[in-house]
C-alpha cells in the first residue's frame, strides 16, 4: 500500500539562508522531489511548535524547519531556538503516537542549493519509508 505513496512534506525555510538556498537550487536547475512545499519565514526561530503540529493535523506526512548554519544565523540564535522547538514538537508527536522522525531541523547556508535538494530528497525518502501520517485529515477524508 505504501509503495506508490507520495508524502506531503512542509519545509519552513528561513529567509536569509534556507529560502535563498532553495532559490539557488532553482537557478542551478537542481531537481528535487515535488513532495516538498516551502513556507518562507523571516527566521527559523519564528516557527512555532503549533505551526508544526497544525501541519500534521491538516495532512502533512513530514515537516522540516530549515535555518542558517550554526553560528551564522542572521538573528544570532534563532536557529538554535528553532532546533529546540523542533525537538519539543517531536516529543509531543511521539506522545500521541506519531513517529518523531517525521519532523526534523536542518541547517544550511544561502549558497547551498545542492544541499537543499539533497535534504528534500532525503526527507522524502525517509517519510516514504515511514508511510502516510497516522493523522487523518478531515478535509482529505471528506472527499
Amino acid at each position, binding site marked *: 500500500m505504501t509503495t506508490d505513496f507520495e508524502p*506531503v512534506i*512542509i519545509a519552513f525555510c528561513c*529567509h536569509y*539562508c534556507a*529560502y*535563498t538556498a*532553495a*532559490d*539557488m*537550487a*532553482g*537557478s*542551478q*536547475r537542481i*531537481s*528535487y522531489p*515535488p513532495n516538498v*512545499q*516551502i*513556507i*518562507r*519565514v*523571516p*527566521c527559523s*526561530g*519564528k*516557527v*512555532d*511548535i*503549533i*505551526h508544526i503540529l*497544525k*501541519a500534521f493535523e*491538516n*495532512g*502533512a506526512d513530514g515537516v522540516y524547519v530549515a535555518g*542558517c*548554519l550554526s*553560528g*551564522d*544565523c*542572521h*538573528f*544570532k*540564535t*534563532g536557529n538554535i*531556538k528553532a532546533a529546540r*522547538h523542533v525537538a519539543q514538537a517531536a516529543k509531543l508527536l511521539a506522545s500521541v503516537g506519531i513517529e518523531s522522525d517525521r519532523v526534523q531541523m536542518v541547517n544550511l*547556508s*544561502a*549558497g*547551498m*542549493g*545542492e*544541499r537543499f*535538494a539533497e535534504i528534500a530528497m532525503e526527507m522524502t525518502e525517509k517519510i516514504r519509508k515511514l508511510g502516510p501520517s497516522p493523522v487523518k*485529515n478531515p*478535509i*482529505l477524508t471528506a*472527499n
Partner: protein
Amino acid sequence: MKTTDRFQSEDRVLVIGGGIGGIKTALDLAEAQKQVILVDKANAIGGLMTLLDRTFPTNNCDLCTVSPTLSETSRSQYIDLMPLTRLIQLTGEAGNFTATLATAPRYIDLNRCTACGECHRQFPECVNFNPGLDHRAPTCMRYPQATPQAYSIAIDQCRDIGALSACCPADAILPRDSENRFDIHAASVVLAPGASIFDPKNLDCFSYGTEPDVLTSLEYERMMSASGPTQGKLVCPSDGRTPEKIAWIQCVGSRGMQKGAASYCSSVCCMFAIKEAIVTKERFKDSMETTVFYMDMRTFGKDYEGYYERSRKDYGVQFVRSRPHSVFRKPGDTQLTITYASVEDSTLNQEHFDLVVLATGFQISEDVRELAKQIGVDLNCHGFAQTPAFHSSETSRPGVYVCGMFESPKDIPETMIQASAAACRASAHVQAKQAEDASDTDIIPERDVTGEEPRIGVFICDCGENIGSVIDVPGLAAYAKTFPGVVTAEGVGHGCSRESMNHIEQTIIDQKLNRVVIGGCSPRTHETRFQDLLRRAGLNRYLLEMANLRDQNAWVHANQPAEANINARQMIWAAVSSVKKARALSDNHLSINTDVLVVGGGVTGMTAAIRLADQGYKVFLAERRSMLGGTANLIRSTLEGDDVQSFVRDLKARTLAHSRIQVIFNAFIVDHSGMPGMFQTGMQVGPRMFYRQIRHGVTIMSTGALPNRPTDFLLGSHAAVMTQLDADALLADSPRAASGWNNVVMIQCVGSRQPGNPNCSRVCCQAAIKNALKILEKNPETRIFILYRDMRTYGFQEDYYRMAREKGVIFVRYERESPPTVQAAGTQVAVIFPDPVLGRSISVTADALLLSTGFISDDESTEDLSAIFKLTRTPDGYFLEDHIKLRPVDLSRPGFYLAGTAHSPRLIRESIAQAEAAAARAQTLLSRKSIELGAEVARVDSKKCAACLICVRACPFGIPVINADGYSEIDPAKCHGCGVCASECPAKAIQLMRFEDDQILSKLLGLLERRVA
C-alpha cells in the same frame, strides 16, 4: 537605465570600481541621499570578495552576507550602475569634473534580459563561474548572485551568432552592440579599483603552473566554495583524490621574498591562510593535516590573535616558522615535496604534501596605474595611490578620493572603513537630494481597505519559457479565478516588464482590487518592485503575496510537469489564502533631531565632529578631561616622520573655533534614553558637576583606549626603562638624551598577546622601528636589539623594517613561554634573553630599555558607557561593532557609531579614516527628515500578556522589557523582526507583523488543502 539628463547635473559622485569597497562607498552615499554613478569594468559588481568561500574571523559564508548588499545596490534609486565601463579621462576640478566613460558592448539588452539562462543552456560550454580555474566562455555571469542579473557575451568567441540570438526567449541579444563613449559631470570621484593578485607562474621554485596540485589561496578558496568548480568538493586537481596533507606557503609575492615580489607586506594573507586551514580542519577533522609555513604571523586586527590561537589549540593547525626553498614532485611520487630550512637549527628538511597553497599577495595592476596616470593621481613607489600622512582617502588630486586596496593592501573591515571614509569626503562636494519628489506629489494616496471584502487579483507570469514551458499558465489563471475572493486572474507574460507592470497597476485601480497575488519568481529578488507597484496603484505595499512558481517549482520540477502543475495550484491557493489575512502596515515615520553627540575628544572625536559640522550638522563634543587631543597628545611623530603635534594643534584649533561644534569639557555621561533620531543624554559637567541634558539624533563613540603601562621589566621603577611612547617624546624633546646610548634593547608585546590583554596592540612594531631608526639617526653607532615574537610591520611599514635591518638593528625572536628577564645594573639594566640561533642565553647591558606596551582598553569608562548606552563590548573591553566585517563602524544599537581606538588599537591615520567613516554612516541617518521603521516588527497584545518574561529571555537582541504597566513592551525602533518572541510566547500575546499566525496557518492550509480535489 535612467535618463541621461541626470548626468548633466554636477551634484553626484563618480565611484570607480564595483568591488566591496566601491559598493560600500556608493551605498553610504546613496543612503545619505546623494547621487552616485558606480562603474566597473567587469560585467557584474562584487569584486574579489564574492569569490571567497568564507571569511575570517567568523567563518561565515560570504554569499549570504554580501548578496543583500549587492541587490540593495542595484535597486537603490540613487545609484546608477554601469558595468563594463571604464573611466577614460577626467577634466575639471573638485566640484565640477567632467568624466569621459566608455561602456564596452554587452551584446545583451539589459532591459529585456530576464537572466533565464537559456543562452547558456543552449551554449553550455559558455558559462564561467570560476576565474582562473576553468575556461573563459562567450556568455558569462560571474557568480550566481551577480548584479545586475544579466549575462554578457564575448561575441568574437561565438561561432553561430544567429543561433545564439535566436535562442533568447526575451529577444535580448544584440549582436551589433558597440562601445559607447560619453561624458558625465561629477562633483567628486572615488577610486576603488582594487588590486590584482601576484601571479606565481614566474617562480620556478614553487612549480605553480606546472604542478596542478600547487594552487593560489584564491584558487583554493574557489575549490572550497559551494558555488565553485567542484561544488565545494576538495580534490587534488592532478588525479582527483582527496588530499590528506595540505601546506600553505606565506608571503608569496610579498615582503621581497621571491623574484618579482613586492617589498611590502600584503597584510591579509596570514589571516587568509589561517582561515583556509581552519575551514579545512572543520570539514575534515583529523583526517586532514594542515601546515602553514610562515615568517611572521601577522594577526594584528581586532580579535585576530584569538583566531590564530584557536587555529593552533582547537583545530590543530601546525605552524612552521620557515621560508620554504622549493616545491616539486619527485619522479614517480603522487605527493609534492617541500624543502625548507628550519629557522631554529638551519637544518634542511623535506616534507610531503598532497596540496600546496601559495598565499599570494596583492599588487596594483598596470591598468590601474595607467588609469591613475591618465587622471593625474600620483602613485607611491609601490604603484599604490599616494596619500597624505593623516588622510588615507585623499589623493594628490583635490576632489578625487581613494579607498580599499588601491590605497594599501587591507582586509575587508579596513576596506569597509575606508570606503565609508571616502564617502564622507566625497559627499562634502555634493548636496543631498530628497528622494524624487514625484513620490510625494504624483502618487495617488493610499486607500484604506479595512473592512472591505477581499477583492483579490492574481497575476501569473510565464517568464518566457521559464515558467511557461512547465506550467500551464492560462489553465492556472482560470483555476485561480474560481477561488472565493478572487476578482480577476490572468497570465501577464513577463510580469516585471514595464508593459505588464503598467497593466497590473491599471487593473488594480480599475477593478478596485484590495489584495494582489503575483505568481512568478522569488520574493527575494522582486518583492520590492511589486510592492512599489501596489503603492503606486494606491494600495498598501503589504497587501501583496508572491508565489515563487519559477525558482522553487518550474525550475526544479521541470522533469515532472504534472506534479509541478499540481504544486503551482497549491502555491497560488496558499498565496490567495494568506493574502486575505494580510493587513495594511505602516512603515512608521519618526521625525528626527539632526544634532550629533560625539563622546570623546581625541583626534578621532574631533575629526568626526569637524566632518559633520562642515556638512551643516550641530555637534556636541563631550570630553571627560579638560583638554582635547587624547593619546595623540603624547605622540611626536609617525613612522614616516610626519609631525603629529602640529597636526593635533591645528585640529584642536579648528574644533574649538567651529561655529557648529560645542565642546563640553569635564563631561561625565550619567544617563541616556530615546531611540535613533531622538536620543537624550544626560551628563554632569565641569568642576561643579552641574547636570545638563543633550538632545541628539545620533551618537559617535570615540572614547579611545589607554596607553598600556604594566609594571613588567622594571617599568616605573628604573630610570633606564621606558615605553615606546616615552622614548618617542624623549627623542623629540631632548635630542641629547639618546646620544649617550651605546646599547639599546626593545622588548615587543609587553602587556599584549598575553592573558588579560590577549590581542595584538597593532601599533607597537612600527613604533619600535620608528624609535630605532630615530636613535640611529642621532647616533649610528648605537647597538639596538629588538626582542620580538612576530614582527607585524604590515603594509608599507615593511619598508621601514627592512631599513632597520639594513642599518644593523638586531632582531631576536623570543617565545611567550620564555620571555627575556631584566635586572637593574646601576644606571643601566641587564637584559637576558635566549638566542634561538646560537641556542644559548645572551646578556646585554642596556643604557635604555624600551618596552612596546601598546594599548589596553579603557575598561572603566567603556564598562560605564556600555551600561548607560546599552552597548556590547568584547571580552577585553573594546566596544563591539554590529558586524565585524561588513559594518565595522556601526554599533549594534541603531544610531550609534564607533571609531578610533575604542574599536581596537590602531594608528592615527587609521583612526581618522574610521572617524570619517563614522561621520559618513551618521549622515545616512541624519540626511533623512524622518526615519522609517520597518513593518516586520513584533507587537504585543497587552491584554493577553502575563508578563512571564519568556520574550525578554528569548529575544536574541534583548529588546522586550516589562513596562511600568506590567506587560511586555517591544520597541518597534529596536525590533529586528525575527519573530522568535512570537513563537515562544505561551499566551500568543505577541504577533510578528506580516508573519502573523493566521497568515502562516492560512498559507499552510492552502498548501495542504484540496490536494485530492
